[in-house]
C-alpha cells in the first residue's frame, strides 16, 4: 500500500512541466537514436549525458531512462520495414518481422512489435515498482563477500553470454579491469600504472572508456568499412495494425515466456537487452508451440525478442537502484548521471525519503514513457523512418563531436580528449581483431567495485578466500558464475560428440 502511495506521488512529480519535458525529449531522442543504424542505444544515452549536467536529478534520470526504454523499440521499425536493424537488439526481428513484412503484412508486423514493446515496457515498470524495494531490503543484509560474488557473476556472464570467442571476451574483460586499476588505489592509497603521468594518476573514468570505445570506436569502424546508404523511397500508406484479442490469445505463452526471460536476463549484471532478445528468440525456437515455423514470418518470432528486450530494462534497473551495480552500458551511464548529481544508488536510496520519492518518480515515468513510446510509434512512424535518410557521414561527425563534448564536460579537462581518442582507436582495433567491447567497458565499470569488495573481504576475513564459497548467498552466486562459464564449454563438447560419429 505504501508503495502505491509513493508511486502516486511519483506520478504527480512526473506531471511537473520540467519532468514531462524531459520525458518527451527522452522518448523522441531514444526513438531517433534507435532508428539510426550508426547510433546504438548506449551511444545515444552517452551523448545525452552532458545535456543533463545542469538539470535536477529527477528530470535527468527520467530523460536517460526514457531513452533507454525507447531505444529497445525504435530499431524494430526499420528492421521490419527495410531490413535495417537500428540496434543489435533488432537482429532477431529480421527473421520473422521482415519476413512477415515481405509477405505483404508490414502493418501487422509493426502492430505485433508495438504490442510486444508495450507489454514488455509495462511489465518492466511493474517489476521495478514491485521488486526494487524488497531487493533493496535484501541488499542491506548482504556483506562484501556477497557483493563481490554478485559482481563476479556479472563479469563471468558478460564473457559467457556474448557471441564470438570466449577467450577474446576474457581478454577484453581483463583489459577493462586493468584500466580500472590505473591511478590511486582506494585501500592503501598506492599509485598504480601512472608512470609519472598526472593524467593517469587521476585514474581513467569509465565514462571515457565507454564514450571512446563505444562512440568513437564505432564511428571509426563504420568509416573503415564504408558508410551504408539507406534509400527508403516512397513510404506510401505506412501504418500499424494492432493485433485483435483473439490473435493475442494465440501468442500469450510466447509473451509470458519472453517477458520473464527479459526480466531475468536484465537482472543479471553483464547481460542486457540484446542478450535478452536473442535468448527469448532461442527459447521460442526450443519450447514454442510453433517452433518449427519460426523464421517464416510468424507473430511469435516478433513478439518474443521485442517483449524480452523491453522488459529487460526493468530487470537491469533493479541492481542499479538497489545495489549500485550497473549491469549494462546504458545503466552504467545512468549510474554516472546519479553520481554527477551527488546521489549514490544503493539500498540506502529507499530509506532516504527525498531520494525515494525521486526513484518513484522515475518508476512513474516508465509507465508514462512506455505509453508515449507506443503513441509515437503508432502515429509518427513515417517521420521516424524518414530519419534513415540522414547522411551517415554527417550523423557520424556529430556523434564524434558530442562524444568529445560529453567527455570534456564531465571534468572540464582537456586531457580527457586524448584519453577518449585513444579508446576510440582501441575500440576500432577491438572490432578489427574481433574482441568484444562490452566486457572491456563492463570491466572498467565494475572493476573498482570488484576490487574494493574483494580487498575488504580479504582484510575482514584474514585473507580467507573460502568465504566466497562457504557463505550461503555468496556460495550460490559463485556456483552460478562457474555454471555460466561451464555451459558454453559443455555445449561445445556435446556438439563435438554429436558431430564425431557421422
Amino acid at each position, binding site marked *: 500500500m505504501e508503495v502505491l502511495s509513493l508511486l502516486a506521488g511519483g506520478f504527480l512529480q512526473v506531471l511537473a512541466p520540467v519532468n514531462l519535458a524531459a520525458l518527451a525529449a527522452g522518448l523522441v531522442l531514444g526513438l531517433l537514436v534507435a532508428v539510426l543504424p550508426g547510433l546504438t542505444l548506449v551511444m545515444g544515452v552517452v551523448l545525452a549525458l552532458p545535456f543533463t549536467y545542469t538539470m535536477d536529478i529527477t528530470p535527468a534520470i527520467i530523460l536517460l531512462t526514457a531513452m533507454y526504454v525507447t531505444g529497445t523499440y525504435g530499431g524494430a521499425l526499420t528492421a521490419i520495414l527495410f531490413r535495417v536493424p537500428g540496434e543489435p537488439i533488432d537482429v532477431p526481428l529480421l527473421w520473422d518481422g521482415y519476413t512477415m513484412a515481405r509477405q505483404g503484412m508490414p502493418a501487422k508486423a509493426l502492430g505485433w512489435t508495438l504490442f510486444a514493446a508495450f507489454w514488455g515496457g509495462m511489465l518492466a515498470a511493474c517489476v521495478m515498482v514491485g521488486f526494487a524495494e524488497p531487493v533493496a531490503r535484501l541488499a542491506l543484509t548482504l556483506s562484501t563477500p556477497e557483493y563481490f560474488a554478485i559482481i563476479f557473476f556479472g563479469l563471468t556472464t558478460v564473457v559467457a*553470454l556474448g557471441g564470438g570467442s570466449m577467450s577474446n571476451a576474457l581478454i577484453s574483460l581483463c583489459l577493462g579491469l586493468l584500466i580500472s586499476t590505473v591511478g590511486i588505489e582506494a585501500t592503501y592509497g598506492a599509485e*598504480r600504472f601512472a608512470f609519472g603521468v598526472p593524467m593517469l594518476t587521476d585514474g581513467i573514468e569509465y565514462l571515457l572508456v565507454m564514450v571512446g570505445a563505444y562512440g568513437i570506436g564505432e564511428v571509426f569502424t563504420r568509416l573503415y568499412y*564504408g558508410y551504408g546508404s539507406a534509400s527508403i523511397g516512397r513510404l506510401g500508406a505506412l501504418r500499424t495494425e494492432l493485433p485483435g484479442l483473439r490473435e493475442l490469445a494465440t501468442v500469450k505463452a510466447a509473451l509470458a515466456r519472453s517477458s520473464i526471460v527479459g526480466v531475468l536476463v536484465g537482472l543479471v549484471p553483464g547481460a542486457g537487452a540484446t542478450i535478452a532478445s536473442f535468448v527469448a528468440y532461442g527459447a521460442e525456437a526450443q519450447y514454442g508451440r510453433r517452433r518449427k515455423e519460426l523464421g517464416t514470418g510468424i507473430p511469435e518470432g516478433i513478439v518474443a525478442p521485442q517483449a524480452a528486450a523491453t522488459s529487460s530494462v526493468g530487470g537491469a534497473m533493479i541492481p542499479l537502484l538497489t545495489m549500485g551495480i550497473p549491469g549494462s552500458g546504458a545503466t552504467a551511464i545512468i549510474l554516472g548521471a546519479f553520481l554527477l548529481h551527488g546521489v549514490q544508488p544503493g539500498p540506502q536510496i529507499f530509506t532516504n525519503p527525498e531520494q525515494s520519492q525521486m526513484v518513484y518518480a522515475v518508476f512513474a515515468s516508465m509507465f508514462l514513457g512506455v505509453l508515449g513510446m507506443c503513441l509515437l510509434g503508432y502515429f509518427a512512424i513515417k517521420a521516424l523512418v524518414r530519419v534513415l535518410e540522414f547522411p551517415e557521414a554527417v550523423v557520424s561527425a556529430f556523434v564524434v563531436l558530442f562524444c568529445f563534448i560529453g567527455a570534456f564536460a564531465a571534468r572540464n579537462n582537456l586531457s580527457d580528449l586524448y584519453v577518449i581518442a585513444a579508446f576510440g582507436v582501441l575500440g576500432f582495433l577491438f572490432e578489427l581483431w574481433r574482441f568484444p567491447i562490452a566486457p572491456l567497458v563492463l570491466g572498467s565499470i565494475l572493476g573498482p567495485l570488484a576490487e574494493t569488495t574483494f580487498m575488504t573481504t580479504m582484510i575482514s576475513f584474514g585473507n580467507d578466500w573460502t568465504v566466497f564459497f562457504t557463505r550461503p548467498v555468496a556460495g550460490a552466486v559463485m556456483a552460478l558464475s562457474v555454471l555460466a562459464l561451464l555451459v558454453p564449454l559443455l555445449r561445445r563438447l556435446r556438439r563435438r560428440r554429436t558431430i564425431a560419429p557421422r
Partner: protein
Amino acid sequence: MTGRLARAAPYALLLAVAGALYAAALRIEYIGPAERIGPDFWPRAILGLLAAVCVYEIAKSFLAAGARSTGGMLQHFLDQASAGGEGEAAPPPSFARLALAVAATLGYVLLVPVLGFFLATAAYLASFIALGGYRRWGVVAACALGGSLATVVVFMKVVYVSLPLGMGPFRLLSIGLLQALGVR
C-alpha cells in the same frame, strides 16, 4: 604460416604488454601490514589471467590453427543471423580513410586549445563529413559552421559548459563571437 603469425600477433602483443605491466606491478610501493594482501595483488591476478589466455591463444594459433574458439552462448544465434543474410555487396574497407580520420581526430584534440572550440570544431566537422564521402559542399559547410555555432550556443548558454576559447588572436575571435551570441 603467415596466416598463423597474423592470427597470433594481437595475442603476442597483449602478452608483451601484460609482461611489462606485471613487472611494473611488482614495483608498486605501499605501506601496510605484511600479513595483508597489498594493492599489487589485484592487478597481478588480472595480468596473470590475461597472460594465460594469451599463451593459450598463441599456442592454439600454431598447434590447432583450424580449431574454432569456444563461442559464448549467443554464438549459435549469431551464426544463424549471418547465414540468413542476403549477401549485400559491401564496399571494400579503406585503411587510408580510417588513418585520415584518426589523424583528423588527433589534430582536433591538439588544436582545440589553440584555435578555440568554434574554429577547431568547424574544421573538424567539415573534414570528418568529407572523409565519410559526402560531397555536397554547401551542406558540408552549413553543417560544419552551423553545427559548431549551435553547439557553442547550447553548451555555453544553456548547459553552462565552459568550452575552450583558444590562444592569442583565436581567443579574441572566440570572445568576440561569444559576445555577439550574448554569452557572458
